C-alpha cells in the first residue's frame, strides 16, 4: 500500500509541474496584455512599453516562468498587479471560504446522495425509485445557477427567510453564519446529488442481483443485514471514485454559485483576476484549484486502493 501511495503521489507531483507550465503559458497567451488592461482606453505605445518593463513582462518567456516558479516554490505568490497588494492572504482567505462551501456540499452529497441511491436501488421500479429519478433528472438537466436564482426568489424575495447573498459573521452567532451557507450549499448539492444517487442506485441494483446476495438471503439473513453488511460496501466502490470526480465538478460549480450568491470565495477571485488580466492572481488561483483537484483525485485513488486490493497490486481493472 505504501509503495502504491508513493507512486500516486509522484504522479500528482508530475501533473502539478506540467500544469504549472500550462497555466503559465495559457495565461500568457490570453488575447489582451496585462499592461493594456491596466492602462485601458488611455494606453499609448510609450506608456505600454514602460509599464511592461516595470512589470517584467518584457523579459523572455522562459525567464518569466522560471522567476515565477521559483517564487511559487518559496511560497511567494507575488503581488496582485491590479490591486497592488500581496496575493497570498487574499487567496487563502478566499480559499478557506470556498472550502467551507465545498466541504459542506460534499458531506451532504456523500451521505444524502448515497442514501437516496440505496433507497432507489432497493425499491427498484417502485415509487421511491421514481421520486429519486425525477429529482435526479431535474438536478442534472437544469444548470445550478438557475436553481440558485430560483431559490433566491423563493426564500429571499418572497418569504424573506434566508439572506440572499454574502457571507455571515461568526461573531453574530453560528445560526447567522449557517443561514448564509444554506442556499449556496443546497444549490451546489443539487446537481451532484443527482449524479451520486444515480450511480449508487445502479451499482446497488447490480449487487442485489449478484450471487453472493442471493446466497446471503438463502442463508436466511434479515434483509437489512443483507443490504447494509453485504451489498452496500461493494456498491460503494464506484461511488468513491465518482465522489472524487465530482469534487472537480464542484470546483466548477463553485465559480457559478459564488457569483450568483455574491459569496467571496476563490471562484469570485478567479473571475476578478480573469476580467482584469491580473496575471499573478490568476496563475495562483488556477494553480490552487488544480492542486485541490489533483489532491482530491489522489485521495480517491488511495481510498479506492483500500476498498479494492486488485488496484493497488497493479492488477487489471475490469
Amino acid at each position, binding site marked *: 500500500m505504501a509503495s502504491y501511495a508513493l507512486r500516486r503521489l509522484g504522479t500528482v507531483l508530475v501533473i502539478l509541474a506540467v500544469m504549472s507550465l500550462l497555466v503559465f503559458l495559457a495565461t500568457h497567451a490570453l*488575447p*489582451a*496584455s496585462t499592461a*493594456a*488592461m*491596466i*492602462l*485601458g*482606453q*488611455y494606453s*499609448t505605445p510609450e*506608456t505600454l512599453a*514602460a509599464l511592461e518593463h*516595470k512589470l517584467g513582462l518584457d523579459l523572455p518567456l522562459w525567464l518569466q516562468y522560471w522567476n515565477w516558479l521559483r517564487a511559487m516554490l518559496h511560497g511567494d505568490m507575488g503581488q496582485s498587479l*491590479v*490591486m*497592488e*497588494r500581496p496575493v497570498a492572504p*487574499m487567496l487563502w*482567505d*478566499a480559499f478557506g471560504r470556498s472550502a467551507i462551501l465545498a466541504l459542506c456540499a460534499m458531506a*451532504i452529497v456523500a*451521505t*444524502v446522495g*448515497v*442514501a437516496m441511491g*440505496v*433507497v432507489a436501488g432497493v425499491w427498484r421500479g417502485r415509487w421511491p425509485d421514481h421520486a429519486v429519478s425525477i429529482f435526479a433528472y431535474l438536478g442534472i438537466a437544469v444548470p445550478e445557477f438557475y436553481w440558485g*436564482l430560483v431559490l*433566491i*426568489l423563493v426564500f*429571499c*424575495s418572497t418569504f*424573506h*427567510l*434566508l*439572506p*440572499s*447573498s*454574502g*457571507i455571515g459573521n461568526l461573531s453574530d*452567532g453560528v*445560526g*447567522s453564519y*449557517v*443561514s448564509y451557507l*444554506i442556499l449556496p450549499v443546497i444549490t451546489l448539492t443539487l446537481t451532484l446529488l443527482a449524479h451520486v444517487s444515480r450511480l449508487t442506485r445502479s451499482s446497488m441494483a447490480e449487487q442485489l442481483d449478484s450471487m453472493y446476495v442471493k446466497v446471503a438471503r438463502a442463508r436466511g439473513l434479515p434483509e*437489512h443485514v443483507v*443490504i*447494509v453488511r453485504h451489498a*452496500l460496501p461493494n456498491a460503494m466502490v464506484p461511488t468513491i471514485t465518482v465522489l472524487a470526480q465530482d469534487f472537480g465538478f464542484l470546483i466548477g460549480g463553485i465559480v457559478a454559485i459564488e*457569483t*450568483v*450568491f*455574491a459569496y*467571496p470565495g476563490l471562484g*469570485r477571485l478567479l473571475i*476578478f483576476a480573469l*476580467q*482584469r488580466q491580473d496575471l499573478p492572481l490568476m496563475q495562483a488561483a488556477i494553480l490552487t484549484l488544480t492542486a485541490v483537484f489533483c489532491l482530491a483525485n489522489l485521495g480517491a485513488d488511495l481510498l479506492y486502493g483500500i476498498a479494492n486490493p486488485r488496484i493497488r497490486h497493479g492488477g487489471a481493472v475490469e
Partner: protein
Amino acid sequence: MRNRMSRVTLTRRKALAVTGGTALVAVLSPARAATDRTIRIAYPAAVATLDPAKFRVGGLEYNYAHCVFNRLTAQDNKLQVVPELATSWEATEDLKVWTFHLRDGVKFHNGKPFTSADVLFTYSRLKDKEVASVLRAALGVVDKIEAIDPLTVRFTLSSPYSDLAAVTAQYQAQILTESAMDTLTTKPVGTGPFRFVEYRPGDQLVVEKNPDYFIPGSPKVDGAIMRIIPEYTTAVAALESGAIDIVYDLPPEQLDILKDSKVSRIEEVASGSWLGVIFNNAFKPFDDPRVREAFTKIIDRQAFTDIAMFGHGSPTVTPIPPAHPFFRADLLAPPDIPGAKKLLAEAGFANGMAIDMYFPNGSPVNERLATAFRDAAKQVGITVSLRMAQEDKFDSEMEGKIAFSVDGFFGRPTPDTMLYAWYHSTGSWNNTLWHYNNPEVDKILDTARATGDKDEQKRLYSRFQEIVAKDGPGCLCFVRNFACGVSKKVQGFVGSPQMWVDINNVTLAA
C-alpha cells in the same frame, strides 16, 4: 434500518437549517432596524484598485473615493463646479495662471493637517508617467504647480484653458497625503466624510463616519457597507428583503421588477453616458462623408432608445447631453429613408451593401442597439452581419482597427472634456476610435477651450453640434439614464448624473 436512519439524518439537517435561518431573521432583524445607522449599498463589480490616480473602472471605485477623499473642486448635480478642498480660485485674463485658495483647518484621517504640499504631491503623482493615471492627458496643459504658501497653490499652463477647475474635480484627482502612501492600497487615508475601515476583495468595502469632517453635520449616517453583488437578481432580492438599502446602477431590464415594490423605489436621472454607432473614417466605406450621412439618416434615435434602453434614456446628437444648456434639441432629426437611399446611390451603393458590425459582449444594451441598427438598415438595402467580440479583446485589440461598431463611453463633466479627445484631430480618442479630421471642428474646439466667455462658448459648441449632426464620425444615439433601486427607509437620496451615490446627506428611517 439504514434507510430510515438516513431519512432521519436528512430531516434533522433540514430542521437545523430552517431553525437557524428563522432564528436569525427573528433575532437580528428588529435589533438591526433600531440601532444600526449604517447604510448598505450593492455594487455589481469590485474595485480594481484603491489608488484613485489609477481608477478607470468606475462604479464602486469612484463611490468609495468620494467617501474617503476630497478633491480641490467638485461638481454638483447640475455639473456646476463647486468648492471642496479649495474654497475659491481665480484665473488670470489669459486663462494661463490659476490660483486655488485652500480650506483651512482640514485634517487627514491620520491627523496630519492638509496643506498645499499635499496638493503638490498629488498632482506631481498624477503627472508621473510611471503612475500612468488616465488624468495625465488632461493635465498635459499644466506646466508648473507651485505652493505660494501653505494654503495657496498656483497652476501655470502652457496654453489658455477654461476648464481647469473641472479637471481638478475629476475622480482621479483625489488629494492624497505623502504621509500615508505605504498603506494606500490597503488602508487609504484621505480627508473625506468617511474613514476607511476595511476592504475584503470581492466581498465588501466598509467605511465609518469621520466625526471631524470639515462640513459640520455631514455625513448623517454612521457608516457604509458597500457590498459587491455581481448578479442583479440577487441584489434586487437583497433590497426587497431589507438586507441592502441601495442597489447601484440597475440595468433597464431590472427596472420593471421594482416598479410595484412595496419596500423600495427607483431613483432615475439622465446621465452623460452615451452609446452610438461608430464609423471608422480611416476605413471604406466611411471615408466617404455621404455614406456616413446616409447611415445617420437611417437611425430613428427615439426608437433606438426605446429598444436598447426600454425607454430609460434620452436621444442625443453629440456627447453634449440633453440636460446641458448648450444642447441643440432642434438637431434631433427624424429618420429619412429616401434621403439615405439618395446619398448611398451617389456614393455608388445604389444596390446596397453588406457590412460587418462589431460590438463588445457583456452588455445587453449594446446588443439591442446593434440589432436595432441591423433591422433599420434593411430598409435601404444594407445587410448588416452582427459580430460579437469578447469585451477585453474588443477594447484592447479591435477598437479603431475595425470599420464599423457599436460602443459607448462614460459622461465627462464639461463640453471640452466631453468633446476634445473625441473630435479634435489630435484627440487621443479620435485617433484610436474613428480618425475624424475636420479643420473647422478643430478650430472651434481650440477656440472654445481658450475662452472664459460662456456666451461665446455656447455659440461655438452650438455650431459644433450643427457640423457633427451632418458630417460626424459616428452617430450617437442616446445618453442612458442612471437608475438605482432605493429602499423606502432611505431619505434624502438624490441621483447624480455623474453616476455616484451621494450618501453625505442621506438618512435612514427606522
